[in-house]
């Protein structure tokens, strides 16, 4: 099968690949870059577990072909925070009990990051809409919303 050259930035680092046209971005991230934080829950853009930021916008990476990410800037959950400190969202998710099995968590964090990037002072309803593309089977969502709200309000408790 034909391969296509792509060049993209992932979490600040530039990568070049030769990919087949049917390779999805989620597969590129997980299998070619070993960035396993991004999960596949449904493969159809419905569950949000594969959410990443592409050129600053939240997208479900199972519905983006790797060839379509040529020239793009991708941020995955591994790109939040750093070696020395967690991102405030990650910190809040832990403190507010917003993580149980953890499978939805990377996607939730990326949707929350996108929200706060475009709307630093969201209402609770806006937070709910922001994560409406992310399913969670464990927490019942309330603590996830509480954690995001805490970060939005700049609380450090």
């Amino acid at each position: 099968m034909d391969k296509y050259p792509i060049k993209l930035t992932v979490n600040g680092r530039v990568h070049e690949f030769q990919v087949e046209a049917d390779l999805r971005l989620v597969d590129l991230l997980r299998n070619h870059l070993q960035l396993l934080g991004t999960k596949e829950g449904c493969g159809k853009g419905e569950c949000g577990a594969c959410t990443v930021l592409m050129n600053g916008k939240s997208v479900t990476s199972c519905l983006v072909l790797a060839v379509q990410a040529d020239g793009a800037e991708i941020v995955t959950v591994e790109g939040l925070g750093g070696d020395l400190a967690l991102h405030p969202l990650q910190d809040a998710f832990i403190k507010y009990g917003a993580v149980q099995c953890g499978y939805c968590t990377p996607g939730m964090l990326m949707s929350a990051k996108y929200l706060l990037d475009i709307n630093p002072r969201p209402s609770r309803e806006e937070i709910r809409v922001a994560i409406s593309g992310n399913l969670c089977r464990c927490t019942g969502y309330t603590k996830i919303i509480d954690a995001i709200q805490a970060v939005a309000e700049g609380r450090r408790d």
Partner: protein
Amino acid sequence: MSYVYYAPSTLSEALTYLNQHNGTRIIAGGTDLLVKHYDRLDTLDGLMDIGKLAELKKVETGETVRIGALVTHHTIADHSWLREYALVLCQGAEAVGAPQIRNRGTLGGNLANASPAADTAPPLVVLGARVELVGPGMTESVPMEKFFTGPGRTVMEPNQVITGVTFPKPGPNQGGCYIKLGKRKAMAIATASIAVQVSVDANKLSDVKICMGSVAPVPLKAVKTEAILRGKSLDSLALKEAEEQLQAEITPIDDIRGTAKYRRQAAETILRRALFQAIRNAGVELDG
């Protein structure tokens, strides 16, 4: 797998390619195509990615509004001019999926996919929109009501591309509303939906446009229901007669998203709600 991926840089390249390669599927945001072909992309003969065609990404405002086919639902939903003058379309766009889908899904894709449940279709119908189709050596502007021919089917030829939609700027005496019912408030395909656009003059409904989704094989313009309401005083709208006429115009079926019986009951309710909200959005204060 043997299919080819091609990403043209200009519309002209795109049209030439389409004309030479029968069976090529167009991909834009991929939020319908990649779901339909989940795990079976090899069934596609070829993929043409129109994502680089910058000329299809513009929103032009003015006496005639033009929205390029590659404009995303997010861009429409968030667009301050469109929210002020064509709110019904923004409400349709923001009803699609969820944020991640709205960041990728496009207006052109929503129309080309031609689901009877498409959220941008009823708003475009009631705005009197036309779809721009471009093919080799031709351009055509098709009225929205004529664009869909059946579930998943449109008047488009295989070598044509939707380049955008146009509609006249709604006047200051107009208001619109889109309501969608679904199993969830997000990430749901409509069980029943309605778009209403009204013009109010001297306490009368000088014009009304109504289009429903998911109650017929195509987005359905309820012309006979419109005729009953058109010209009526806001104090005596003939709602009961309008509701009865709506029942006669819609042809809902039972499917996984709901029964025909439910859709008929829901249609009356969302007609009322959308009509009253559209009148309020036209600047009229209503009780109740």
